[in-house]
């Protein structure tokens, strides 16, 4: 995505301090970051670098300790953002269809219409036939697809994803990465995608914001040069992919091994 696109999310000198009895932890420190319209931005970093915290502040689930985030809301009839959580966020007491209907009802969609929308998105995520099943009766990969369908169904202006594939096994993860690429290609939402997998970030992202830990900072922002639509197998086989992966890995390795 060329940087000429207008800014959708502006993060300005954002800081977050978690205080507890023992002391305080600086989870985020002076974060400055722009996310552009229609961009797929990956937040990449080791665990504990604050990438999830940054996403949660964007989602309005956490207040910053300092600094601000400005998010442009273009169409008041659409949701500004929807979140796909890491795991265990699908309601076990609701059927798969009811899980997807829930956020739609919150935005004032009528039940009959919400059901149609839900079924459409469940079909998009290959979940047709499981509408009336309870989440605990299906596999982890399917549950996570329900979580993705639930977020996509409200057609948010920005999609915030917190390691949505981290709990899945490697093969399932590859399949869902392809699915996400297809869906993004078709919908072109603005996406902020938290991950700790370099491969995943390179495959999905237009840009990768590499974070360092303690305190959480943006270490560097890398442009991903691959053309869209992307074909995962071709990209993984390309020399650019290997080179970029090495570059990011060396960068991360320095963060992980304090001199």
């Amino acid at each position, binding site marked *: 995505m060329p940087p000429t696109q207008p800014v959708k999310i502006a993060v300005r000198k954002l800081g977050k301090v978690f205080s507890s009895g023992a002391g305080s932890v600086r989870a985020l420190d002076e974060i400055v970051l722009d996310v552009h319209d229609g961009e797929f931005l990956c937040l990449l970093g080791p665990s504990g670098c604050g990438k999830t915290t940054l996403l949660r502040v964007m*989602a*309005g*689930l956490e207040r910053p300790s300092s600094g601000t985030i400005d998010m442009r809301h273009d169409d008041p009839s659409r*949701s500004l*953002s*929807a*979140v796909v*959580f890491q795991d*265990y*966020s699908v*309601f*076990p*007491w*609701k059927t798969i269809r009811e899980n997807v209907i*829930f*956020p739609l*009802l*919150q*935005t004032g969609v009528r039940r009959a219409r919400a059901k149609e929308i839900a079924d459409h998105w469940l079909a998009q995520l290959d979940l047709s036939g499981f509408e009336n099943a*309870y*989440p*605990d009766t299906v596999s982890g990969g399917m549950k996570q697809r329900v979580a993705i369908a639930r977020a996509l169904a*409200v057609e948010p202006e920005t999609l915030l994803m917190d390691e949505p594939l981290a709990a899945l096994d490697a093969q399932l993860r590859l399949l869902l990465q392809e699915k996400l690429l297809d869906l993004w290609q078709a919908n072109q939402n603005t996406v902020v995608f938290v991950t700790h997998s370099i491969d995943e970030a390179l495959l999905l992202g237009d840009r990768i914001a590499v974070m360092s830990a303690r305190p959480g900072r943006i270490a560097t922002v890398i442009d991903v040069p691959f053309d869209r639509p992307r074909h995962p197998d071709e990209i993984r086989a390309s020399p650019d992919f290997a080179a970029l992966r090495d570059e990011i890995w060396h960068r991360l390795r320095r963060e992980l091994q304090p001199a």
Partner: protein
Amino acid sequence: MSPVTRDQEAVESTGTWRTIAPGPAELDPRGYARRRTLMERGLAILVPVALISLWQLLAGAGVLESNYFPPPSDIAASWADLLASGVYQESVLASLSRIVSGYLLGTSCAVALGMVIGSVRLLRVALEPTISALYTVPKLAILPLLLLIFGLGETSKILLVALTCFFVVLINTIDAVSSVSPRYHDVGRSCGASRWSTLVHITLPAALPQTLTGMRIASGLAVIVIVGAEFVAADAGLGFLVWNSWNLGVPEHMYVGIVSISLIGVIVGLVLRGVEWLLTPWNR
């Protein structure tokens, strides 16, 4: 080189083989499962039948003192007498109506209050110590107080059952509501769910299984406490039947009462299991 077969190996070495092969459960899984269920159900019935038969035998042979342990056949006969005279129906109805009205009153108040207290942190912090303290008071101990205030009528006994159920269900509901995983609330907040919507779609269903467990425990306590109350402050009911039979020296009637009380406990428990099954379809 050809692969070593078992026969060749057996000739060449002195070691023994351990063969792992399908057993009866694997060869006929459906039949095996059917036979096992049949046996388990059979045992569940057979054991009490055997115990009662043993009792009958020992009592008939004069080994058991019949003033304390009348033979089951005598108990069954006096059960029939009580039924014929209508005393039995009256007793069961009296106890059951106290249990049901007290239970419904106490439980519904407790669930409603528990939902509110559990979801409002300030209320929880303010009230929890008091609730825990009141919970530990044996409710039977306040029966005299209730009798003093409300007299010997039905109100005091219904309130006793209600209070007993109230605290058990309240504590379980508060605990259930406050331990709902914050992940689910995050989902609600990120969808912009209203307070009401959060309560109906997230808090209530998430807390339901533990709340229902509390309700099942309360049903057992309701039966226990009403019998205690009827011992001292009633002129009808199964508790009264047991107590009065002691006064009159009719041990057979005592046993009819005791068995009936335990049957009511079992049936109420089963009914609540059914309610659980209906209300939490995702846990089936």
